[in-house]
């Protein structure tokens, strides 16, 4: 018996309103993502790949259609329910790292754990564990401005995995990095899939980054190719 997909998307549509104009972004998309997949979503600007990623991550609302993540239908959840769901099920990796500049690497990684019932000691153990996974144990007291771009992205990855979510969504995670740092980040993400069994959904423009993925899907004018 085959394992059910972790992400099941059916007839998903999304449009934006600009003044009186309605601009369709996604038109009736249906597809599945298997558990433990490393999927790259590619497509030209405006093709709807970031919108699709946001919908899967539960940070935007679809007009129609359904999204089931690990058996949970997230399109019917309220904003607060989605917030709780995101906290436990999805890790985010952004193009510009989105670290809080006044918090140290340790504190940035600790941030999602503040929403859990873990004690301070347990939080410290979790944070130190994930910082060691990304190889930044020695930089935990540094502020983002004291870290290179690659190191900041590794902190962001540590923050994304610290709550041990099943799914990681990454929006252009190498878009702001030099080649060497990008390679490091992609290798780290690959490790998360192969070693830790995470499912990674990555939006990218970069064909080299897409090469690292196990599966590449193209979006064009709001439709999957």
């Amino acid at each position, binding site marked *: 018996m085959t394992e059910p997909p972790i992400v099941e998307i059916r007839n998903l549509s999304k449009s934006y309103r600009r003044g009186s104009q309605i601009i369709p972004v996604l038109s009736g998309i249906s597809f599945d993502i298997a558990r433990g997949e490393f999927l790259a979503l590619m497509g030209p600007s405006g093709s709807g790949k970031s919108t699709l990623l*946001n919908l899967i991550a539960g*940070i935007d609302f679809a007009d129609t259609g359904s999204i089931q993540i690990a058996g949970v239908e997230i399109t019917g959840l309220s904003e607060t329910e989605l917030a709780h769901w995101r906290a436990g099920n999805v890790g985010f990796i952004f193009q510009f790292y989105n670290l809080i500049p006044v918090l140290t690497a340790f504190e940035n990684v600790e941030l999602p754990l503040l929403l859990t019932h873990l004690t301070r000691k347990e939080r410290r153990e979790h944070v130190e564990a994930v910082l060691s996974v990304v190889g930044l144990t020695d930089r935990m007291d540094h502020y983002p401005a004291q870290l290179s771009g690659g190191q900041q992205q590794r902190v962001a990855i540590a923050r994304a995995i610290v709550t041990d979510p099943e799914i990681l969504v990454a929006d252009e995670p190498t878009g702001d990095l030099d080649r060497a740092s990008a390679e490091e980040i992609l290798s780290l993400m690959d490790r998360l899939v192969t070693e830790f069994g995470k499912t990674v959904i990555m939006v990218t423009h970069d064909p080299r980054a897409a090469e690292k993925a196990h599966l590449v899907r193209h979006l064009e004018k709001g439709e999957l190719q």
Partner: protein
Amino acid sequence: MFFLKFVIKNIFRHRLRSILTIVGVAVAVLAYGLLRTLVGLWYAGVDRASDTRLITRNSISLIFPLPVSYLERIRGVPGVKKVAYGSWFGGIYIDEKHFFANYAVEPKSYLELYPEFVLPEKEKSAFLMDRKACIVGNRLAKTYGWKIGDLVTLKGTIYPGQWEFVVRGIYHGADRTTEERVLLFHWDYLNEAVRQTAAGRADQVGFYIIGVTSPAVAPDVAVAVDALFKNSLAETLTETERAFNLGFVSMTEAIMVAIQIVSYMVIAIIMVVAANTMAMTARERLGEYATMKTLGFTAPHIGGIIFGESVAISLAGGILGVVLTFPAAHWIEVELAQYFPFFSVSRETILLEMLAALTVGVVSGIFPTWRGSTIRIAAGLKRIG
């Protein structure tokens, strides 16, 4: 704990901006506190008035005198315990800039009616025995360096001439609110001189001070006294000391109201400035708030961080303002003693200062809190990069 640390770290993210806002709130709170104290002091004379003292004056106006012969008839009114009388002398020491109150009074009864003027028994006796004697308040004596035995010369304005007095006593106030910048001398001394130079003005007093047996009888005594002199050439108006003082204060009420409005305006202005700062702060961090929301933080979390920062900045300004109020009040008391014999900041004023700071924090935090906590994640994330 983490959130408190986070709020504090956020406050010092733009150090200069936060410090300027804190200083702005502090200055506004300080100004509010000082203006409020000033208004309070203006009414202090009313507050310290005794319930058992009545003032009788000419019903037409205070500038018109009453015959000293009224004394015995007033004494005969039931409920009257003691009667003193006096006249506003209006003498000038050196020049008009050195203003202080000076009265010619019937000294024995006057001092009995004003136990808040505390005078050593020896000095009191010396004052009562010497017709040319005067007593002065401690602050007044300190201002001009007067000591017992010194000769003080006042230039008469209402009663022309150079008037010499020997300082026989220096009184202290029973508490801080007692006026200590007054000079009192014998009404007899004045009257004798007036009899020689302007006989028509002799045997006249400016006011009577009536001590009643209890506050309860005061209204009846006032009515009875005025009834005694009804249809006379000098009808009287008798009122409680409180009402009498309030009459003086009400003459300047418009100025006091203006000062009060200014004190509220100061708070309103800083509220707008703080609101602008907080709005700017929240706008700059919308991307961060959106990021935190993606991590699972909800609107109340984000709102709490922004609101906490707004309130913390304002309270820091409030505390600084309160701390500065005391040395500022002391400075006013020392440097402007001529106008403000005591400038004491009340506990109520301190509480109102902190309340004003809290109000600034709450009001200025409302819009940024709403904006930051309701930002849509996708829209907020677009602000980064």
